[in-house]
């Protein structure tokens, strides 16, 4: 398994798109830090990049990569290898190389300019988001045979997690405005890894942002160590669940 990971990673890291992605992140982070006069504002701008670009690139690149590797996967499957280990290796290879790209592109500038709790959390969350969206991409790719359909699905998923979900939440909030929804919102945020990541970072970064009763409830939950651990657990579930489902699917898939 280690060997497959090694080869997949070596292959991806040499891929031009990953290089461009890395450079883009690097340029974006450095310019954000050098343009903003105070670097915590820089972190805030960077947050938008992490919450939008990282999931987008992760999900689309991974989907395309899986489709493009169909024959390679076929070749591996005909070898004396467990299907599960092939698929997991592919996942680890993709997640690993995108995480590395993220770490170099965003992590290093952040460590240079803002090496504090918020910075570390941001790097951690960014890496987790990369991994989560690789996992989701692989589930989408294993479910749909057709490449065009699969990529479309990946884009749709991204739109859903970045925009539609929040729109839906807003709609529901107004529909049920008469009910005390604050506590429920904590639960709702677990349904979208992007929202969860955003709240986690904001609570560290921008305390004034989270105000009023809702803010207090969020802080009571996410601000504590238990809350942080639970959020981490939820994010890890967002990794493991799609991976587990996709492995199950891949095990039964006809190639």
């Amino acid at each position, binding site marked *: 398994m280690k060997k497959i990971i090694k080869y997949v990673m070596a*292959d991806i890291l040499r891929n031009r798109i990953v290089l461009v992605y890395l450079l883009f992140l690097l340029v974006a982070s450095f310019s954000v830090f050098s343009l903003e006069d105070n670097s915590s504002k820089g972190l805030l701008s960077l947050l938008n990049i992490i919450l939008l670009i990282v999931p987008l690139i992760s999900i689309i690149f991974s989907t395309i990569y899986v489709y493009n590797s169909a024959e390679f996967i*076929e070749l591996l499957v005909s070898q*004396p290898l467990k299907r599960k280990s092939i698929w997991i290796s592919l996942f680890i290879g993709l997640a690993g190389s995108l995480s590395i790209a993220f770490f170099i592109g965003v992590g290093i500038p952040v460590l240079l300019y803002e090496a504090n709790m918020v910075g570390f959390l941001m790097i951690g969350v960014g890496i987790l988001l990369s991994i989560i969206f690789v996992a989701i991409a692989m589930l989408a790719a294993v479910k749909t045979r057709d490449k065009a359909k699969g990529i479309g699905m990946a884009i749709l998923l991204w739109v859903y997690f970045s925009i539609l979900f929040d729109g839906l939440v807003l709609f529901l909030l107004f529909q049920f405005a008469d009910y005390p929804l604050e506590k429920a919102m904590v639960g709702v945020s677990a349904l979208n890894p992007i929202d969860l990541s955003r709240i986690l970072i904001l609570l560290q970064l921008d305390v004034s942002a989270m105000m009023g009763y809702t803010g207090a409830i969020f802080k009571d939950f996410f601000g504590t160590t238990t809350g942080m651990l639970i959020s981490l657990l939820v994010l890890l579930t967002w990794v493991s669940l799609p991976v587990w489902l996709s492995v199950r699917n891949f095990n039964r898939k006809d190639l």
Partner: protein
Amino acid sequence: MILANNVSKKFGKLQALQNVSVTCNKGECIALIGPNGSGKTTLIKSILGMVVPDSGFITFNGNNILHHWQYRSEIGYMPQIGRYPDNMRIVDVLNMMKDIRQHKSAIDEELVAAFGLEELKQKRMRTLSGGTRQKVSACLAFLFDPQVLILDEPTAGLDPVSSEILKEKIIREKQKGKLVLVTSHVLSELDDLVTQVIYMQDGELRFHKTIEALREDTGQEKLSKAIAHVMLNASTI
């Protein structure tokens, strides 16, 4: 060695395999023949575990292959279209395979030399022509000296010289007592190779005969003619 029992597979509405039963033994060279879409590749993939049959089972050396993967170390497979990670060089692919298979005994790199891949070793896979890729696929199939060779359209895309080299290689391996399963559209190529013929149509196995028996039945010396005869008189058999 390989035994398929009542194997059926449906892809959506298409019945790819229908109650196919075959027995393949050591030292045989079996040609899988049939029109396009007759289920040849599906059968091969089922044997390789890449396609999971809806019903029926396949055994390899007496063991059911379902959910097992170790048996594949005894198989060398050459796919119809071989594609490899774009950024890898030929040497990387070969090394990777050796690395992954962890083969203990001797490595058979005869074909690598015969195809002249040594000079191309540093080339990246994406720069290779289809024929060269086929050569790489062929090399990989023979690399680990497997007991069973499964070759899906091995000569498609190969130039006549290379295809001759490959054929000779197949014959040599057959003589070593290996089981060779081969599909091809170019029947004339199979003449000197095969000892048995499996003929498939619409996912069904129409017959499985030794080449001698086929020649006797059809009265044709050439395999291509014999098969043509079969196809024309499908109902008589």
